């Protein structure tokens, strides 16, 4: 009897060969959600809102509350999560965060964060969300989303050629850069690198620069653009980007 009790207990558990494994499932969720966003944009009027969340890490209870708040405050055309979905870049962390974000009533796009790249996190992100650098033209706004976690990525990151080319190619009246780390991060980027980002922002008339990384929300300026640090769910905050007849504005929402 005791033997069968123990056997049942063990059989009900799963086999995990290593917490650091990547997994086999290829979801490419950013690509799927991009298609959904583009397909549904015709259904949205000229006034719309986009929500920005960030640095969910292992703040699972706060993230649950945040998802409920975003759903209640909608509708949003889509949601952008500006990175750090995990602490250690582990598959189970990615899966737990995805389980919570999937409760959003709106499609969402994910920016890669520095913690997401730890261990085998880069491979997991690639399979779960797809490319780290991409752009999206949504109505009058060009969103350029890119990886600028220079210490954790290896290679030449951020890919300034991609960002500059996307800005040059865009005919959209409004332009927004979205990354995980602030473009003005003095620890990670040299004064010359920060200066070149400032030049790029002013030359191309970028309207907003959104990032995460620092968990405290902040609203400042970066060159000629408005600079928003989104803040983490445990700070009980997220941001809205609002498009209406008055143009493009933003709002900090606390919950």
């Amino acid at each position, binding site marked *: 009897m005791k033997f069968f009790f123990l056997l049942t207990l063990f059989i009900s558990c799963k086999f995990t*060969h290593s917490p650091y494994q990547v997994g086999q499932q290829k979801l490419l969720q950013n690509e799927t959600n991009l298609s959904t966003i583009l397909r549904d944009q015709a259904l949205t009027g000229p006034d719309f809102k986009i929500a920005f969340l960030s640095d969910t890490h292992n703040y699972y209870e706060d993230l649950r509350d945040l998802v409920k708040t975003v759903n209640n405050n909608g509708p949003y055309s889509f949601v952008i999560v500006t990175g750090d979905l995990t602490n250690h870049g582990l598959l189970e962390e990615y899966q737990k965060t995805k389980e*919570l974000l999937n409760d959003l009533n709106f499609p969402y796009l994910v920016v890669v964060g520095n913690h997401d790249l730890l261990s085998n996190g880069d491979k997991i992100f690639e399979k779960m969300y797809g490319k780290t650098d991409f752009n999206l033209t949504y109505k009058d706004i060009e969103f350029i989303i890119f990886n600028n976690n220079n210490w*954790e990525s290896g290679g030449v990151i951020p890919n300034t050629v991609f960002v500059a080319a996307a800005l040059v190619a865009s005919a959209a009246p409004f332009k927004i850069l979205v990354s995980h780390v602030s473009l003005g991060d003095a620890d990670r980027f040299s004064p010359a690198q920060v200066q070149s980002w400032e030049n790029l922002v002013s030359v191309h008339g970028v309207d907003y620069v959104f990032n995460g990384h620092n968990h405290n929300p902040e609203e400042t300026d970066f060159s000629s653009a408005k600079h928003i640090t989104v803040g983490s769910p445990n700070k009980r905050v997220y941001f809205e980007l609002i498009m209406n007849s008055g143009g493009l504005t933003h709002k900090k929402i606390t919950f």
Partner: protein
Amino acid sequence: MFTTPSAWAISYVDNALLQFSGEIGLISVGLEKKMSRYSLGGLYGIVPSEVSGGRVIETVTFRQTYRFYEWSRFDAYCGLNLFHILGLQYQSTNFRDAPQGYYPIGNVRGLFNLGTNLFFKKEEKNSFYFEAGINDIWIVNYLSNSREVNPRDHVSMGMGYKIGF
């Protein structure tokens, strides 16, 4: 004085282990020494890239168990596996170009487990063992998110065979 290498080995080692899964590798091999109810051991485990879905994962584990109950043909034990993944890719304290210590994340994980050894006959030295464990990350996540994290979702199972000397 030991007369043969095997006699020398047997005085230090009581069991050889072959384990499947349990967070320390797809397959792990190791040795164990019994000291009354305590056992201490070391294992080397590997997850090939085809199974991990990415890079090869090599794990070294310091295994410790305590038998808290014994029946005639099986026992129950609790244990702690301290394991480390080999390779710079897995060392958060020294990750790529990040400054040393930028990530205050330990390079050793702890897996707390409960298990049982099953013997086919009384006085049998060889046994099958089954164990279920949860690692330190999900214990911490549970303690800080008890409303949202169910520890049962993060329990993993390992099973193996012990050859007694």
